[in-house]
């Protein structure tokens, strides 16, 4: 029986194994130890949701608490990366990108190009995204399309504990700046994860489920949502191919296009709001590169063009669910000209 651990534990294990392997790996962020300068425990939290718990004592001097100064410490991680370190900085919520975005998109993302290929900036920014925790408009967004838009950044969306460990190890080893987006509703999900270290390459999609009728491309937490929908639809005689691209930048266009060439039908499931998101991106890709294969219009299942609401009565409507995905799949499967 293979070992099962949580998404949170998988990320923690990846960090620990890389810190063990490479002394250049350091961690920094608000409460990443938790308790700096306080009278009680000096590693009280291990990050606000406990992802870095236990690393502070295991790796003395390499887990740094920071003031609430995202520009300063995200920038510091970037600066340290240019001097040979392999920093992993935690931007607690992706929503906080607004207070430090310059350091990410004008500095880290552009150094290599602006400096004529004569810089490497191997920094990883871990950040929590997504709705579902009743955390309201400023702590719940799925802003990864904004990072995906920026040349020079790589953007990672692990959908399971297995992906989380392998993609985190790859992020740390990668020589480019990486935005590692952790869905807050996935931290307690469990799955099979090898104990040994392994890296999952970027830009290689995972075909989560094979099927010949409709291609579903889903990102991050939406992979699980799409799988549930596909399970229901199989009972109705519709076989879905569910693709998890794993990274939005680079994007594995080939796997998506090959699948659509075979199914002729595409549904994209993206928790981000609908304008200029991954769903529009993938639909544009398919419209441009596989138009001849399409046997039905493409469909996008996304959040609405609104901020994330607080009340569960509204937030549950905001998040794409298996029923909405199933409805979209049925509409393309049964589409007639």
């Amino acid at each position: 029986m293979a070992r099962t651990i949580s998404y949170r534990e998988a990320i923690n294990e990846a960090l620990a194994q890389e810190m063990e392997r490479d002394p250049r790996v350091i961690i920094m962020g608000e409460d990443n130890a938790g308790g700096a300068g306080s009278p009680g425990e000096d590693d009280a939290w291990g990050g606000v949701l406990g992802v870095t718990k236990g690393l502070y004592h295991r790796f003395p001097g390499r887990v740094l608490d920071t003031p609430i100064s995202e520009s300063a410490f995200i920038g510091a991680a970037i600066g340290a990366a240019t001097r040979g370190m392999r920093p992993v900085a935690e931007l607690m919520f992706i929503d906080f990108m607004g207070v430090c975005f310059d350091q990410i998109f004008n500095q880290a993302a552009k150094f290599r190009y602006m400096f004529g290929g004569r810089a490497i900036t191997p920094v990883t920014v871990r950040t929590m995204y997504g709705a579902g925790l009743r955390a309201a408009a400023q702590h719940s967004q799925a802003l990864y399309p904004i990072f995906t838009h920026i040349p020079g950044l790589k953007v990672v969306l692990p959908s399971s504990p297995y992906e989380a460990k392998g993609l985190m190890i790859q992020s740390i080893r990668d020589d480019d700046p990486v935005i590692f987006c952790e869905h807050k509703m996935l931290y307690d999900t469990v799955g099979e994860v090898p104990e040994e270290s392994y890296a999952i390459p970027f830009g290689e999609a995972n075909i989560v489920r094979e099927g010949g009728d409709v291609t579903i491309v889903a990102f991050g937490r939406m992979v699980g949502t799409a799988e549930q929908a596909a399970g229901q639809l199989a009972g109705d005689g519709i076989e879905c191919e569910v693709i998890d691209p794993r990274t939005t930048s680079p994007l594995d266009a080939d796997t998506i296009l090959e699948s659509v060439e075979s199914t002729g039908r595409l549904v994209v499931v993206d928790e981000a709001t609908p304008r200029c998101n991954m769903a529009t991106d993938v639909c544009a890709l398919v419209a441009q590169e596989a138009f001849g294969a399409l046997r039905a219009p493409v469909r996008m299942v996304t959040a609405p063009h609104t901020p994330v609401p607080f009340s569960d009565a509204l937030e549950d409507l905001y998040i794409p669910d298996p029923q909405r995905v199933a409805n979209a799949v049925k509409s393309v499967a049964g589409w007639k000209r």
Partner: protein
Amino acid sequence: MPEIDEITLLDAYRMMRTIRAFEERVHEEFATGEIPGFVHLYAGEEASATGVCTHLDARDTIASTHRGHGHCIAKGVDVKAMMAEIYGRGTGSCRGKGGSMHIADLTKGMLGANGIVGGGPPLICGTALAAKHEGAGGVGVAFFGDGASNQGTTLEALNLASVWHLPAVFVAENNGYAEATSSSWSVACDNIADRAAAFGMPGVIVDGFDFFAVHEAAGEAISRARQGGGPTLIEVKLTRYFGHFEGDQQTYRAGEVTHARENLDCLLRFRARVTERDLLTDKQLDAVDIEVDALIDAAVAEAESAPRPDPGDLATDVYVTY
């Protein structure tokens, strides 16, 4: 004031003179239309970059500003490659992809001029952190202007450097204007250095027309940082000889440039001092002048005839792997 040896003095003069000649020449060439884009010239401020960088070596990293040519030269970036970059040539420091505002050479510890006001100080917290981990006594130096002294990034970086006790030096070059807005209006306290107290670090005010004053203050701060004594904020008060960017008519100014050129020129003051005290001779300094002018002539000639970037370079160097 500590003694400075003859070689260091001559090197310092060469550095300041190179920056001045480089900037005066870019000013002339820009007017001919040969140089694309924006350029922000450092002429008048040479004693600051030189007084600080004379203390630095390969362990150390600096971050600069949009007015970055002087810092680049002072940290040892190749002058001909810089000129080629400003001309947008494939032989430039950044192969024509960066331009004046992004000249960098990480192999020299020069983390880039920076088009974002306040972009550098957070980065320098990181290079200082890396230097601390390396344990070889390296420091990080952030140059920024009076404009950046009002940016949150700078204030956050000052706090973080103090909280983490980093080997960092923050050099605020107060040239009196953020673009066209006077620092006497935009900086709410009397001096930028006064802000050091808020971050628990020493704050020092230095006459930026006096190489020796900058050299002494920077030497103390850098030495303290190397020995684990934490960060320092140095405010260097000086004047830029040209506008915010080339083409700026400077109608917001009132004659202080003429006064500075005639009375406060750091090069003239340096020459007067070293010759009066028999530290260097006019003959030695004149020889440097000739050597520097020849270098700048050669840099311009080479830049003008250098190849433009290859069209195939458009999409390269975005990632290491993708």
